[in-house]
């Protein structure tokens, strides 16, 4: 089966197209832009907070790791340092925070790669004509096009070009 890749010159044309296509209940696979186009995700109706949650989870686990690691290290070989007790939570706070930041960043970054299925060096779309301008000044819409009607509908949107691709 094939998919249609429609190329637009203006971001707002893309947005308009997206809205119309969705009204027509034509399934949209994805849309591609050189930069995050304001409102595009809403128009596409994609909703995804997982990254934030991952980061948050990372920070929590980092904090726990940081605190309990210090707790363990101090209890493993208890020493009298400057007359302080071996368990000195006030001085543990700093590293607890550091660790929460570290794991937060890691979760978030690697979460991003995994959710985005990156790295993906080879992708059929790269073969699509003119797709190299997706990182410059062209805006693409990729839709499932089972029938000719849908295709015609897309053509009525006057994209700069239409290409059939194997997603």
């Amino acid at each position, binding site marked *: 089966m094939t998919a249609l890749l429609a190329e637009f010159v203006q971001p707002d044309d893309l947005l308009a197209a997206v809205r119309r296509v969705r009204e027509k209940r034509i399934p949209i696979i994805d849309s591609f832009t050189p930069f995050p186009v304001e409102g595009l995700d809403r128009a596409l109706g994609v909703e995804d907070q997982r990254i934030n949650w991952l980061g948050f989870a990372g920070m929590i686990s980092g904090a726990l790791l940081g605190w309990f690691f210090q707790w363990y290290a101090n209890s493993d070989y208890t020493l*009298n340092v*400057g*007359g*302080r*007790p071996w368990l*000195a939570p*006030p001085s543990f706070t700093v590293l607890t925070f550091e660790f929460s930041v570290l794991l937060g960043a890691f979760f978030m970054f690697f979460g991003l790669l995994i959710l985005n299925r990156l790295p993906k060096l080879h992708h059929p779309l790269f073969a699509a004509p003119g797709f190299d301008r997706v990182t410059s000044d062209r805006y693409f819409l990729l839709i499932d096009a089972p029938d000719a009607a849908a295709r015609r509908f897309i053509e009525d949107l006057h994209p700069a070009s239409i290409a059939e691709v194997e997603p």
Partner: protein
Amino acid sequence: MDENETKDRLRQLAQQGGRRFWRGLEEMLDDGSVGEWLAAEFPSAFEIGLGRRDMLKIMAASLAMSTLSGCGPTAESPAVPYVNQPTDYVPGIPRWFATAVPFDGYAQPVLAECHAGRPTRLDGNRQHPASRGTISAFAQAAVQQLYDPDRSQAVTYRGGITTWNAFDAALLDEAHRLKKSGGAGLRLLTGPASSPTLMRQIAALRGVFPSMRWHSYSPVGGLRGVATRQAFGRPLQVMPRLDRATVVVSLDDDILGPGPFQVPAALAWSEQRRKGQGMPLLFVAESTPTLTGAMAHRRLATASGRIPLLAAALSGQKPPLDPAEAAWVQAVRKAVEDNPGSAVIGAGADQAADVQALCMALAYRWGAPGRTVTYTDPVVAESDAGLAELAADIDDGKVGVLLMLDVDPAYAAPGPLGFAEILARVPFSVHAAGMYDETAARSQWHLPLAHPLESWSDCRAVDGSVTILQPLIAPLWQGRTVHQMLDGLLDQPGRDALSPVRDTWRSQLDESAWRRSLEDGRVPETAFDAVRVQPRPLPPVAAIAPPAGTEVVFRPDPSVWDGRFANCSWLQELPKPASKVVWDNPVAVSPAMGRRLKVENGDVVEIEVEGRRLRGSAWILPGQAADTVTLYFGYGRRRGGTFAEGLGYDAYQLLPVKAAPSAGARIKRTGATHHLVSTQLHHAIDGKDLVRVVAPGEGIDNAAETVVGHPDEHSLYPRYPYQGYAWGMVIDNDLCIGCNACVIACQAENNVPSVGKEQVAVGREMHWLRIDRYYEGEPDHPFTHFEPVPCMHCENAPCELGCPVNATVHSPEGINEMLYNRCIGTRTCATYCPYKVRRFNYYYFAREAAPLEWAHRNPQVTVRARGVMEKCTYCIQRVQRAHIAADRESRAISDGSVRTACQNACPTSAITFGNLNDPDSAVSRKRAGRRNYGLLDALNTWPRTTYLARIRRHGAGEA
């Protein structure tokens, strides 16, 4: 072993590097030597008779060889047992031998700690009244001198190396020739001597050579003999009793200062001082600041040349005095009247004889003879004549054979004598000494003298009692003792070292008595009894004011004395009490003179006395008499070892033949500067609570200068509980006389390296224990405070908080631990330390010592490598030794069974160490006293080391 071998070994030794974390002879000398060496050490030193020397020779050789094999960086350390192990020997446990180190003719009684047959450290001899277990810095340094790689190592003739046999032969010829002439032209030159054996031998020599003459010379000491003759008609040793007299008057007489009398004087002084009444009242009039002056209740800075006027005034005459002097005299007289029959007075040894005599008479009149001042026969025997006479005789060609035993006249003679030059005119000149010094270079024969710790000999202590010196190790460089040298003249060349000494005592001491006196370090019933004396009428002293112009006084250097310790890095790096200068001798100049000449510290000045000139760099010394310049002996040496040579100026150049302050000198600044290195650049007390002073019976709480802050018990954390032992230290500032004995003791015990002048100059000295010196009042006549500062072992240790790797933590007994092997050298602990008592190994200082010197390292203490922090550990090795001994028997460590090195050495017992959890321990009781305070206690560090405030009687304060 012959000279060439020796030379080779030395060269090889010189090339050897140290080994990281080296510990003890057990590892360093692990080859054949150890066994033989120990075998030779046993049975214990005093039983060895004839044939021992050969044995010892091998040992000396093997020390050299083994040092070689032991110090390679990759040296594997095999275990080397004995062939025949002595019955009472236990591997790994040090043994102690009693002996003495002579100093200016007086015995300093010591106990030597020996590890595997090698003396590593000297302690005082508890059983000896002249020591009571304490010891001076000089005596302790003997160990370092013993292993000094620069020591004279071979017999030389006209500078070329030869053998003992050659010398014996030559001496024999001379002896024959001399016999015929009855010893005409035979001269003996020694330092001050009290050795009975030496006296016996000299007597014997007189028998063989009737016209022999014995000269003795010491640049210090002066005219005591003459003075006592004038005062009492006979030579005497006059001892002011600081433990009994309630008023002590010193006219330029440094009673508590360095020298053979320091330890006994300090012992006596502290005995009375310890009663806490601020007694005795000490009145000092002196030209240059001394330890005695620092302890004075009332100190007068005045020219040495005006001392006769003061003496006259005190004796009732009416000499012209300036207001300050008059006031001081007034105060003294009042004190003397208030304390009838309990005052003593003494004048400096370089004062004119009649002045000294007058003071002796005054002391007799003011005090209770026999109680506040005692008289005994002189301990140091009187010789036929001095150096001046000898020089004259040489000039007249009367001297044919000159034996110079353990003296260095070519260096230490007064410049005007020109002794170094005329020495060449002596047909047969023999010089025996430990170092190849200036005299050695100018004598025909130079003989290596055995070190006191290598020798059989005997010597009298200050109280006259005799200590037999026994060898603790074989002569490292095949040296002979003085007695063996004289044996050579008595037709017994090359006889063993023991015999001459044993001969002296054979009649008095049978074998068992001989053993006992060796074990005790004291021959019973040899102390001198006090003698009753009758003062003779004295003519009034000529109380004429000295001529105008600058006055020059001469003093032995507080660190290297007359120069004999000049090659000892411990003492070179020992801060001089007054100036804290190291590795140099400054020209002491008063602040007033400094202002007048526009001279600052380090400016080179030229002093001219009777046409002779000298250049040295000035040091402004608060408390110095306005127009007086002080020159210190012991420096400006041209020979005498790598450390000794080329430092400072040679004060002997200006020393007048008749020892006395020379007036009418001229001083001017040359414009040149020479950087003098001092370990303390700032001296004003910054806030009086660093050193606190109270009136007798008073406590800190109501002291004039009161505490700023009290330890704050409120903390985020609970206070750490210390069960069991809680080690702590109390230092009594009222007893500390700043004599530096503790500093050297700490250095010797804990393998603290010397770092050299350049490193001290950038502030990298390594002393774990330093003595801070602060001035109070105006610089022209200040009050001086001494304060020993070791690690405070704070319970809230700021340093520990900073260390990222737990290299410094607290022990469950409250000791602030420093783990060298864990330290990575971030230096955070030292940065955080408010007391700056931590020392950092910026380089591998310990390795810079010559391999031979490693022999006196303490095997119980790790030698620190480069890049690690170190500091006072409360002598943890001693604490642990006591701990293990006690724990083995599951008993408690008794109070006083752990004594730190500094505590052991301190002649005034100013330092107390013990268990704070035991309310009855000495340290707890002191800490409970009202004079107790913590240094910087406002910082809430809860120091384990605390201080007792100094006591000052009201009214006596202002100088």
